C-alpha cells in the first residue's frame, strides 16, 4: 500500500449520497449539556491553568511509556509530580489514588483495574475516580459528593449535575454555609479538590 494509491483507496469506497444523508440523520442525536457542567469544566481549567505554569495541581506523573497514538508529542516539560500534587486527594481509605492518564485510557486496562480494585491496589491508569472498592464503609468526607472515597474534581461535577437536574440536594452540600446550594458550592468543592 503506497502513497500513490492512497487517494484512489478513498475514492473507491463510496456510498450513495442518499445513504450518507440518512446516516447523518441517524447519527443526529444531540445531547444537551447543562450549563453547570460547562461551568464546572471551565472552573477546573481556570484552577489548573492559574495554578502556575508548572501545572502543579493537575499534572500527573509522566510515564515513559510511548503514547498510544503517536499524534501526541510530549514536549518533555512534564516532570513526575510528587504524590502531594496529584489530582485526587484521598481523605479516607488506605490507598490514595493517583490519576495517571498520560495516554488515552485503554479498555483492557479496565479489566486490570477491576482486579486491582478487588485486591485493594491503586488504580494505575484510569482517569475516573476508581478508588477503594464500592463496599467501603468508612465515613465519607462531606465534599465527597459521589461517594468514591476521594475528593476530586469529579465531586464538583457531580454536584453541578445534581443542581442542574433540580434533584433533591442534601443540605450538607451547602459547603459555604450561605443557605443556598448553587454554583458557589460547586466552586467550593473544586477548590478543595485541587488544594495542595
Amino acid at each position, binding site marked *: 500500500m503506497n502513497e500513490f494509491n492512497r487517494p484512489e483507496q478513498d475514492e473507491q469506497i463510496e456510498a450513495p449520497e442518499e445513504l450518507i444523508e440518512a446516516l447523518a440523520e441517524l447519527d443526529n442525536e444531540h445531547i444537551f449539556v447543562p450549563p453547570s457542567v460547562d461551568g464546572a469544566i471551565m472552573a477546573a481549567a481556570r484552577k489548573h491553568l492559574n495554578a502556575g505554569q508548572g501545572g502543579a495541581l493537575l499534572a500527573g506523573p509522566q510515564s515513559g511509556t510511548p503514547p498510544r497514538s503517536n499524534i501526541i508529542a510530549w514536549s518533555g516539560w512534564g516532570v513526575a509530580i510528587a504524590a502531594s500534587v496529584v489530582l485526587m486527594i484521598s481523605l479516607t481509605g488506605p490507598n490514595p489514588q493517583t490519576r495517571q492518564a498520560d495516554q488515552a485510557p*485503554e479498555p483492557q486496562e479496565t479489566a486490570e483495574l477491576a482486579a486491582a480494585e478487588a485486591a485493594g491496589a491503586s488504580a494505575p491508569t484510569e482517569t475516573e475516580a476508581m478508588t477503594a472498592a464500592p463496599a467501603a464503609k468508612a465515613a465519607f468526607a462531606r465534599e465527597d459528593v459521589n461517594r468514591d472515597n476521594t475528593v476530586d474534581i469529579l465531586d464538583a461535577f457531580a454536584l453541578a449535575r445534581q443542581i442542574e437536574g433540580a434533584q433533591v440536594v442534601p443540605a450538607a452540600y451547602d459547603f459555604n454555609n450561605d443557605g443556598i446550594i448553587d454554583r458557589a458550592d460547586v466552586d467550593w468543592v473544586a477548590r478543595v479538590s485541587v488544594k495542595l
Partner: protein
Amino acid sequence: MIEILHASREVETDPQSDLRSDLELIDAVNEGDHSAFDVLYLRHRDWVVNLAFRFTRDRDLALDVLQDTFLYFLKKFPGFRLTAKLTTFFYPAVRNLSLTAVKKARRFQSDESISERVEAPEEVAPLENQREQLAAVMAGLSEEHREVLLLRFVEGMKMGEIAEVMGIATGTVKSRLHNALTTLRKDERTRKFFDK
C-alpha cells in the same frame, strides 16, 4: 431552609466568534490562557458528547464521558502539542472512556453484554420508515463496521485518519468499510439506497 438555585452560565464565550485555530488556542492554553481552553471546550463539546452518546447510548454516561474527556485533555497542559486534528486526539479517549463507563454501569445492572447495549436499538415496531430500517440494519453490524462507516461518511474522515483513531491498518479500514457497505447493499431494507 435550603434554596436550590440553578446554575447559570458564567462564561458566554462564543466559539464561533473566536477565529483562532485549534493550534493557536492550544498554544495560548500552554501559556496559561484559560479562556482559550474555554473556547476549545465549547468548540468541541457537542462533538465529544454526541460521540460519547453514540458509544454509551445513555445521556448521563455521555455527560460523564464528556467531563472525563476534557479533564484528561486538561491534564495534558502545559506541554500539549497538537500534531493532527483535535478530534483525532479526542476520538480514542472518548471511545475508551465510554467503554469504561458502560462497563462500570453494567456492574450494577444485568449481565447483558456491552455489545448488546451498544448495538441494540430501541425496539421499534413496525419498521415503517427508511430511517428505522437503516437503524435496524446498522444495529446488526459489528461495532467496528458501524464505526468505520460513520467515521467515513458522517464525520468525513479519510482512511488514514480513521486508521489512526481506531489504531488499525488502513487496509483494515478499507476492508471493514467495504464489508459494511456490502451488508447494506445486500439487505433488502437498505438496498434501495444503492438502486439508481
